[in-house]
């Protein structure tokens, strides 16, 4: 019981990920091989990159559903620029720029016009995806140079570690430190708790939120580049549905959809956990459809378990005599109104 009271979901999630790796290594002999680990990290690379910046947005009480379309548009921009200039560094720069601009458009619509981010990004989800088709149309791109795409299967310094690990570590550390031990990070939490209160204490709410959308656009653009390298192609229908995977991981990690609560390490753990579970199930001949069912069920359980736990605690607290009652003071029952639940 004592142990249960100290139970914290966000600390538990990375443990869960580690435990899955541990159990997996016993369960299937191929699981903890270098080949499978390379594949596992590559398969979660783009999702984790976006999850870093998405955590900031959700903690600040906003959301961005358009990330998969931004990643696809960035990938298409990369392909388009490569087709026309034949210069990879320029193409990558353009891709990142496109992502950043897309994020800025989302941010400006939300902060300048005061629109709901959910509605805005459902709109830009369709808009950016449409632009992918407009940009590439039915053209066939000339293939990317092997010096570019070979990044994917050449390990770091000749080891099995894929190059994307560098990006994950650099951005993971940068975003983690920013969220949890800088002033900006505290601001993000304050904004998520209450925008009005944050404004009253002098936090430049609009500018911070705009910045979060811009950084999220940049990260989605980066994910688009990584995606292009992984599949060695730029396609208008790439990365479809990735937004739901990113958001599912963040919510599983205990980031509150209402803002103000969340940790980056839990989100990282959740992405690894989902990746490990999927990899393990795939090794055990589960199909992609069954993986989808497992992902959805875990998402549901991740919100149900804390809620049911909370109910039990409330019930127990209501049964236990309060200090006032033990002292013989009569208290009128008090009922709280239902909380808002968007």
């Amino acid at each position, binding site marked *: 019981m004592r142990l249960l009271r100290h139970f914290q979901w966000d600390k538990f999630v990375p443990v869960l990920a580690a435990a899955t790796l541990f159990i997996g290594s016993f369960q299937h002999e191929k699981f903890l091989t270098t080949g499978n680990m390379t594949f596992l990290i590559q398969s979660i690379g783009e999702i984790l990159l976006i999850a870093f910046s998405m955590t900031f947005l959700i903690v600040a009480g906003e959301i961005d559903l358009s990330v998969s379309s931004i990643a696809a548009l960035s990938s298409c921009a990369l392909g388009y620029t490569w087709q026309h200039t034949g210069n990879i560094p320029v193409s990558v720069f353009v891709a990142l720029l496109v992502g950043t601009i897309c994020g800025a458009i989302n941010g400006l*619509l939300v902060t300048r*016009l*005061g*629109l*709901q981010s*959910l*509605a*805005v990004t*459902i*709109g*830009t*989800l*369709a*808009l*950016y*995806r*449409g*632009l992918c*088709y*407009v940009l590439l*149309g039915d053209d066939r791109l000339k293939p990317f140079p092997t010096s570019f795409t070979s990044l994917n299967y050449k390990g770091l310094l000749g080891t099995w570690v894929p190059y994307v690990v560098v990006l994950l570590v650099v951005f993971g550390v940068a975003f983690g430190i920013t969220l949890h031990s800088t002033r900006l990070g505290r601001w993000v939490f304050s904004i998520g708790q209450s925008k009005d209160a944050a404004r009253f204490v002098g936090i430049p709410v609009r500018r911070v939120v705009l910045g979060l959308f811009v950084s999220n656009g940049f990260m989605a653009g980066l994910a688009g580049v990584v995606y292009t390298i992984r599949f060695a192609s730029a396609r*208008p229908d790439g990365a479809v549905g990735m937004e*739901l995977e990113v*958001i*599912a991981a963040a*919510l599983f990690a205990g980031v509150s*959809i*209402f803002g103000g609560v969340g940790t980056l390490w839990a989100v990282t753990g959740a992405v690894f956990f989902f990746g490990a579970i999927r990899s393990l199930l795939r090794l055990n001949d589960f*199909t*992609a*459809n*069954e*993986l*989808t*069912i*497992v*992902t*959805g*069920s875990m*998402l*549901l359980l991740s*919100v*149900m378990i804390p*809620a*049911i736990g909370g*109910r039990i605690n409330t019930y127990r607290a209501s049964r236990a005599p309060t200090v006032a009652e033990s002292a013989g003071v009569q208290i009128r029952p008090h009922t709280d*109104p*239902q*909380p*808002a*639940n*968007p």
Partner: protein
Amino acid sequence: MTTVAPVATPPPARPASVLAGRATLLRRRELPVGIALLVVLVGTSISNHRFLSSQGRTDLMLAAAITGMVAIGETFVLLMRKVDLSVGSTLGLAAYAAGTAIKDGGDGQLLKAFVVGIAVGLCVGLFNGLLIALLDLPALVVTLGTLYVVAGIQAKIVGGERITADHLPADFISFGVDRFLGVPKLMWIVIAIGIVASLYLRHAHSGRDLYAVGSNPPAAALVGIPVRTRTIVAYLVSGGCAGAAGVLFVARLGGVDANAGGGYELAVIAACVVGGVNIFGGSGTVVGALLGAMLLRTIGFSLSALSIPEFWQQAVNGALLLVAISADRVVTIRRDRAERTRHR
């Protein structure tokens, strides 16, 4: 605490004043969508005479009917400041269940198809509603979870054996394309359900409750509205409509595969929002949502009729959604400013 929180005053219970308020809202919001719809219809048919031919009209209305059907249910949920993302996969699962129920059988199984499809929808809706209402879980998370689960179940049970028109009874296939008074039968069904839903939301006590809950959930609970019951009912309606739309889907396309209904959820929410349903609850009508669905579908069809490459469609839909919510926002700001000066 120096001040005592004022007891929430119940919203005015006189239906007359509520109706008057609704009427002006109707004038303000559905009208521009209707006008836009007319402009697109007329403009396209001028440049392409075949656009509004009898076949063109039928195709257009059949496509709009399915989106519209789901949009009716989604409106109930959006009005309460909730969201239902699982409608797309519910549609797909219900379509497959209904198709399986009547395949290889004789004619006259229309009712059976609807019963099965709607039952599947109600099950998903009940599951969503119970979790969201009883455990106070965030609607976005729960319905995202059921979206995955239902889509996975659908893909798993369908597998490679998709249902094609050969399996389905002949009268069911013809039901999907038959017309009555020049309008497809499917569209009549949607219109009928739209009228019932519209009357319910506008006149029934419990229907008005949805607006109250969406405008201010804590206040609605304080004035004694059974918020949980209403939430569960709204999700049942949403699931049931998605299930019924699944049946329309099989009837129209004459088949189901493992991906049926994928991506419908965002198209439906876009249709509702374009039609003036506030994504954060409290305002909007079924008529608006149906007009929104019609408008989005019409634009899609008119792009191909104007031989604009089809891939512009998604970009246009997204841009239209952004324009719609921006316009709403500007109207709201103007109205608030006007009210503030009036009170001064």
